[in-house]
């Protein structure tokens, strides 16, 4: 905090008025800054005072920051000097609070960098910093990645730390458009956790984080696993298209995520010949597979989704079953294989579109 820079703002206002003079004195009564620059570096004598001047100690939370000297017309001197002192003290308090916030923000940033470090989890550094930040490491937390196409104002984000319910939350601006929070959660049962987080997101929107997209990972109880929750947010952001103010939970896409971990080359190897020689419309197969998954493999609902007659859908499914020797309607494995076949074909189509050769 630069007290002299702050005081210069006061000097500008005083000089517009020309009725009063002010000066900022240090603890040994030397002038640091004055509206009349001729006073600079003078040492004032507090003992001998005239009626048209006052010396007021600048006390902020019990600490003496110097003295305010005000000189001018006796008529309103007390009112003006009291108002000046009050404004100065309040401003110093404000700037000190900002300083503390910035420090905490910087340390939060450091902690998150340690937690997300690709090269490895440094438990000692993480615990030391967590202790300095009074972060309760026993709490469960979840990663929330918030994106804004407009970009975040860092001054505004600084204040997020003060928001109600944010004492054990720490966060970092990954870049101008991405804000990462690790929020403590009370409930770990899925349905109540979701409700708790939805309420919190609503509070964030009311606080000021509007026109953003919110991606939420899974709850983690160990610091070393916070990175996993964040990576889930990043995966969600890549896979799920959200409009402004929408929220996406990783828990709603767990199946897709797990399936995405299957190596599709293995699927190509298993079904190699069938994939080359089948007589099925691939785009149609992909659509059917996706609609079945979306409708929990309910044939009637899937038929509605695809605007097909139920019997037509069953006929098409039978053809797929015959071509690939899988039992879609009767077995769990068949359903999974259909899903994976669709993913494989979809990927192949995408590769053809960008001109890759197998």
């Amino acid at each position, binding site marked *: 905090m630069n007290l002299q820079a702050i005081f210069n703002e006061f000097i500008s*206002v005083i000089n517009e008025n020309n009725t009063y003079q002010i000066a900022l004195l240090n603890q040994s009564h030397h002038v640091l800054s004055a509206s009349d620059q001729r006073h600079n570096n003078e040492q004032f004598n507090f003992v001998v005072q005239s009626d048209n001047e006052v010396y007021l100690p600048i006390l902020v939370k019990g600490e003496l920051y110097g003295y305010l000297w005000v000189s001018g017309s006796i008529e309103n001197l007390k009112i003006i000097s009291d108002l000046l002192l009050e404004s*100065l003290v*309040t401003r110093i308090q404000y700037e000190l609070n900002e300083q503390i916030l910035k420090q905490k923000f910087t340390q939060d940033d450091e902690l998150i960098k340690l937690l997300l470090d690709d090269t490895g989890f440094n438990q000692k550094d993480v615990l030391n910093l967590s202790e300095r930040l009074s972060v309760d490491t026993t709490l469960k937390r979840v990663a929330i990645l918030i994106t804004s196409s407009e970009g975040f104002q860092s001054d505004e984000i600084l*204040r997020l730390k003060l928001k109600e319910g944010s004492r054990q939350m720490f966060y970092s601006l990954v870049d101008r458009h991405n804000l990462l929070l690790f929020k403590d959660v009370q409930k770990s049962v899925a349905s109540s956790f979701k409700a708790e987080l939805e309420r919190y997101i609503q509070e964030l929107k009311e*606080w000021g984080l509007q026109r953003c997209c919110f991606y939420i990972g899974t709850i983690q109880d160990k610091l070393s696993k916070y990175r996993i929750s964040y990576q889930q947010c990043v995966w969600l952001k890549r896979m799920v298209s959200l409009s402004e103010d929408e929220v996406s939970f990783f828990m709603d896409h767990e199946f897709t995520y797990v399936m995405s971990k299957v190596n599709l080359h293995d699927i190509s190897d298993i079904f190699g010949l069938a994939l080359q020689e089948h007589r099925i419309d691939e785009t149609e197969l992909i659509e059917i597979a996706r609609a079945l998954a979306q409708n929990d493999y309910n044939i009637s609902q899937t038929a509605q989704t695809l605007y097909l007659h139920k019997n037509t859908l069953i006929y098409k499914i039978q053809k797929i079953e015959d071509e690939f020797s899988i039992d879609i309607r009767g077995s769990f494995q068949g359903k999974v294989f259909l899903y994976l076949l669709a993913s494989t074909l979809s990927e192949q189509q995408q590769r053809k579109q960008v001109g890759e050769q197998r």
Partner: protein
Amino acid sequence: MTIQIKLARVDKRLLHATVALNWSNFINANHVVVVDPSYINDPFMMKVMQLCLPKTMKVDFLMPEELGAFMQQESYQKINVMIIFKDLHAARQSVEAGLTLSELQLPYPASRMMIKTMHDYFNPEEIDAIRAMQKLGVQLYFQTAPHDNKEYAFFKKKESKNDHV
């Protein structure tokens, strides 16, 4: 973009107390409006008071009847406003002049334990102002600092026949 009221507060110490308690940071306000008719004709005093906040925080001094129009203006930037009324009278005038306000904060009285009824703390004109604003849908509550609980119950007590005595 519309202007959002993040906090509306009655505080006779105006900006100084509110800023000192760090309200502007807690509620993420980037604009402060002070409603105190006595300051409007004294630009110098207004400027001295504004010095308690950096220039990045916009501060306006308005008359009660100007507040409604201020809130209706469109802005290309997001404006989160904190409104500070000098007293209940200024708040009432603003609401009756068209300001849409859902809640109004009053700092806890110093002697809160001694206060059982409105008359223990508010004078008849203030009680009148409270009731008038409640009829227009404004909820009042006590809260001094951001971490204090909000107390609505005191203002929800049934209107007594003697409110105006």
